[in-house]
């Protein structure tokens, strides 16, 4: 008997860790992985709530989130590659001009 709130709090913890990663890490790829972590955290709460309400729609939403995450990862990593080509660094503090 695990209360639903445990799942949601776990999701909140993971989400906050993702946010922390986004703020404190300096490597572009790691930043990206933090974003994925946040998405995963949200997915967890989707699944938990879908289970709680006995509705499948939550799970379908997770499915869509995953697909969009995949697309985002593909484009984002491509951007990272081209940034690295132009700048020879992945440190976000170095890439502070909003243009290349």
């Amino acid at each position, binding site marked *: 008997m695990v209360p639903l709130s445990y799942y949601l709090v776990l999701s909140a913890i993971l989400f906050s860790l993702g946010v922390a990663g*986004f*703020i*404190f890490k*300096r490597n572009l790829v790691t*930043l990206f992985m933090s974003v994925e972590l946040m998405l995963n955290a949200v997915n967890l709460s989707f699944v938990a709530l879908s289970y709680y309400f006995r509705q499948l729609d939550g799970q379908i939403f997770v499915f869509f989130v995953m697909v969009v995450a995949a697309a985002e990862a593909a484009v984002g990593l491509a951007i990272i590659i081209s940034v690295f080509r132009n700048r020879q660094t992945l440190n*976000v*503090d170095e890439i*502070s001009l909003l243009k290349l």
Partner: protein
Amino acid sequence: MDANFYLWLIPLVPLLGAAINGLTGKQRSERGVAAIAATSVAISLALSLRAFFLYSGTPVVESHMPWIYAGNFHVDFNYYFDPLAAVMTLVVTGVGLLIHIYAAGYMSGDAGFYRFFAYLNLFLFFMLTLVLAGNYLLLLVGWEGVGLCSYLLIGYYFRKPEAADAGKKAFLVTRLGDLGIVAAVLLIFKTFDSLNFTEVLPAAAQFAPEHGAWGPLTIIGLLFLLGATGKSAQVPLYIWLPDAMAGPTPVSALIHAATMVTAGVYLMARSSAIYLNAPDALTMVAVIGAVTALYAATIAVVQTDIKKVLAYSTISQIGYMVMACGVAAFSAAVFHLMTHAFFKALLFLGAGSVIHGMGGEQDINKMGGLRKFMPWTSITFLIACLAIAALPPFAGFFSKDQILWEAYSSEHGGLAFWIIGVTTAAFTSFYMFRLYFLTFHGQPRFEATAARAQGAHGNGHGGHAPHESPATMTIPLMILAVLSVAGGWIGIPALLGGGDQWNHFMAPVFTQAADVNHAAAHHKASTEYLLMAISVLISLSGISLAWWFYGRQRSRDEAAADTPGALRTLVANKYYVDEAYQFLFVRPLVTFSRDILWRAVDQWVIDGAVNGAATATRGLGSVARKLQSGNIRSYAGWVIIGALLLIGYMVGYSG
């Protein structure tokens, strides 16, 4: 549903043509591209004719698939076919087909040939969507689409800055009006809980007329009017159309004469049930139309660019149609829309033929005597001029006369509208024949001999003697000339022994409007004869005036260089209105302004306030600049702060 009308195919075929030409046209020959484009339009025309002959008196609604379903908001892809849609479809596809054939000749040798035809077909797709739409939202799709195509086609020569700018201008100005349409559509949904014509219009007919009140129907009507002033180039949003002449001439003929610019009139005619219960909006429409008609006609008198004359003439003629809508003579408005499509397309194509033959020259002061060089163009142009000058038995006479009569007799109209209409008619016949005489009569005023010696006989874009255009261009001219003569005969009023078939055919669309105008039938027949005679005389006097100034042997050379003294000075100076204002108001004002307002109020009070505001803004900006550090991690921090505020609000208020 007794027969399948295949309405959805009518717009779709041109779309297919556009897709084929746009995607694979680069590899095709010009002949192939033109064939695909023209064939797709021809199929549309055939389908429209089939639908027209199948039509049996009850409006056809074809619903094909659900489009947007959200709550009680239901919109389908449905098409609606009734006499109004039939007329519009036939005009669009018929004139469109002729112009396609013409453009095949006119544009030959152009680098973007396939692109041009792809745009043209895309335009037809959107235009047909507009006229066949069964609900306001689909109509809006077509409405925006034709705006887009208009932009693409006006800016077709995008390497020329003025063409690119004209395209942008047309797009943005009409967009301003489209805002009104969007708002009106939202309001229609809010008022009627539906966007389908079949539900909205009967419901609107049930409303009580809103006299002097700001009810929903009045607001919808005014918003539609705003949209129509943009798309149909009425005062105050007409400014884009003269510039739009930077596009290729077939485009001017198709979009800016026959079809797109009449969309506003179509919209009002379609929404006649709404307007009839909003008399204030109707009056506003009539005023806008009348003002535009007169205003544009007077400007047209002093234009020297052949296409600009026609552009202002178009604005003026659409002003007539809008005025007709405003006096609840919807069927007359659509009648004039049709005949105008014939003769104005003919005029534009004739002008295109002249430009083509003159090697790109558009200044009428540099033409003259083209009769001998371009016989077919000249004859058809003359027919079109007679049609637009509303001489019987040409098409323009019947439609314009019906508008004038209804403007006089309708309960929404009045003598003032009739006077404005007749005055405009005088100007119209004057400037059209000024154009005709200057272009086709008198002595040639261009340098042909020198170029002819070089034998520079290119594709019509080098300096050489004017020549008649190829058959692909002249045949459409002849067909349109026939239509310009005979197009009005379907609407011969009962008074002249005709059957008035037009109004009988259109009556079901404007059931209410018909009631309004039957009330006008108690006017004496003699009055109608008198008005008719007056308008014919006025037209004739305009023509003879034009002949006096431009057509006679004497003074042709001076006349060519200039419009007649008194009249020209009057119009060119905009009736001295400015000077009168100057004397009456401006000078006293200037003194008062300079000494009191400027020296005291402005420099001390207002400048102080403005500069204070600027300083404050600058201070705020220097603080806010720190937000834009360029560092992603700082941005993330700001995002989190925003999220925290939202969540905090939820925690605090949602309980």
